[in-house]
């Protein structure tokens, strides 16, 4: 059978994305099906272009879109306890935000209840997925990741209630994440195409839309929560804890997006994949370090906070410039480079590289809100571009407390 080249596969994948197929499991399955169809046509003597056109012309207009809608509707009809607890968490968070905005008592307790509900959601989700995918590889890692995240949440609960043991728990969870996630990256990189199926990657891929939706919900509430406090000049500890919770989870998700590249490409010996592994892992570890409250000094602390964002912008720009088949690749390369200036400006402001005018602009409420609007517009305009979308989400999360 004629095997298609990487470029030809990417062309079909880009076409599927263009047709609005965003549900990752369905997309990869349709991609495989279409490639098989094209290969069959090529066996009968057609070249790639004619084979692809012939296959494409047999598919009615909007067929894939309807198929995706039908599949999503089918899946959402099933009562899912994870979804129920997820909704309870969101409701608690909404109440906490409302209480905070209206200066009512009980915000701390509601935030605490939200953290507990999120932990329950995670535990149920893990039990469920390990049970459903009982034959899959990587179930131990699901338990380990859940345990570490719950330790992290517990540490935040202890911090909120000012209970003893908060710091050791926080250090344990952050150091564990800083070891586990890069270790997984190295494992996926070295396994390359040999790794057939891995539960953690499978779950992330299957739930990408839910994860992104949850991240945006967290950011939305975080912005209201923290901005209402900031505008009134009453930024408090609860807001900072909430910011740490959101940004770490979002950072973990963004970092996990690189895993797909390692297992789907022949990564061993590929210098770009190796470079991706090194830069993304360094950025991820740097990104986690400010949570550990050591006296780093202003320069190191500020660098740890903003350099990972700059690295991510560069990774995204290189991806779109060199590897992507997206029809928006030039625009996205330029936008990724432009986005790099935001963490750079904030870093420079912290380290007093610029004049007071620039520093005043960066912390100006109109600039903050204007930039947020630009991010929202970019998010909507390029919602189908997974990596760029992740970059925007992380930038939005970092924008949650612009004065930090």
């Amino acid at each position, binding site marked *: 059978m004629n095997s298609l080249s990487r470029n030809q596969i990417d062309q079909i994948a880009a076409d599927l994305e263009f047709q609005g197929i965003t549900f990752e499991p369905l997309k990869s*399955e*349709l991609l*495989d*099906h279409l490639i098989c169809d094209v290969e069959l046509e090529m066996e009968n003597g057609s070249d790639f272009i004619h084979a692809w056109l012939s296959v494409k012309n047999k*598919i009615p207009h909007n067929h894939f879109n309807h*198929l995706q809608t039908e599949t999503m509707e*089918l899946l959402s009809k099933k009562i899912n306890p994870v979804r129920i607890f997820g909704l309870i968490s969101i409701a608690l968070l909404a109440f906490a935000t409302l209480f905070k905005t209206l200066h009512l008592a009980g915000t701390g307790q509601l935030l605490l209840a939200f953290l507990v509900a999120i932990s329950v959601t995670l535990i149920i989700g893990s039990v469920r997925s390990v049970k*459903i*995918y009982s034959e899959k590889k990587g179930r131990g890692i699901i338990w380990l990741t859940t345990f570490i995240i719950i330790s992290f949440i517990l540490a935040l609960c202890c911090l909120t209630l000012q209970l003893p043991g908060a710091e050791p728990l926080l250090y344990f969870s952050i150091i564990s994440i800083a070891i586990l996630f890069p270790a997984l990256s190295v494992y996926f990189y070295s396994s390359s195409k040999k790794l057939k199926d891995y539960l953690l990657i499978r779950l992330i891929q299957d739930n990408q839309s839910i994860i992104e939706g949850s991240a945006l919900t967290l950011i939305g509430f975080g912005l209201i929560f923290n901005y209402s406090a900031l505008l009134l000049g009453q930024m408090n500890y609860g807001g900072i804890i909430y910011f740490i919770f959101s940004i770490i989870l979002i950072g973990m998700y963004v970092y996990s997006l690189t895993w797909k590249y390692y297992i*789907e490409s022949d990564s061993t010996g590929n210098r770009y994949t190796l470079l991706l592994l090194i830069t993304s892992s360094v950025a991820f570890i740097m990104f986690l370090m400010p949570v550990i409250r050591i006296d780093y000094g202003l320069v190191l602390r500020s660098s740890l906070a903003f350099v990972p964002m700059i690295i991510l912008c560069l990774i995204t720009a290189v991806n779109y410039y060199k590897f992507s088949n997206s029809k928006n690749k030039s625009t996205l390369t330029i936008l990724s480079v432009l986005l790099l200036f935001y963490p750079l400006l904030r870093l420079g402001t912290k380290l007093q590289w610029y004049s007071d005018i620039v520093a005043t602009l960066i912390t100006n409420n109109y600039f903050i809100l204007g930039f947020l609007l630009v991010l929202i517009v970019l998010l909507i305009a390029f919602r189908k571009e997974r990596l760029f979308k992740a970059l925007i989400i992380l930038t939005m999360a970092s924008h949650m407390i612009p004065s930090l």
Partner: protein
Amino acid sequence: MKSNEYIKGTIKTIVLKLLSENKKMYGYEINQRVKELSAGEIELTYGALYPILYKLESESLLTTQSEIVDGRVRKYYSLTPQGNEIAIEKIAELGRFVDTLKAVLAPAPSTNFSL
């Protein structure tokens, strides 16, 4: 077969039947097998096949396993023990229905009633 209206209600059973005879199959393979067995008379569209596969998976009747083949992900489906039981039940049910249908569609014997 020009009309798909008869096929719609039977796709689930067709998929279960094929999977009961094969340890694991992927979407394209199921499609091709149906085409082959029906001598090209039945061709499942993407829109007919995949929602059924996802539904069966969400009902825990199918389990899946992904493999990387020629640079892309291939998802294999196989029956769970529960899926196996349902497959036997559904195949028998459809068989009985086809028999009933044959009886209904068979030329009616002439009656002695006349006006």
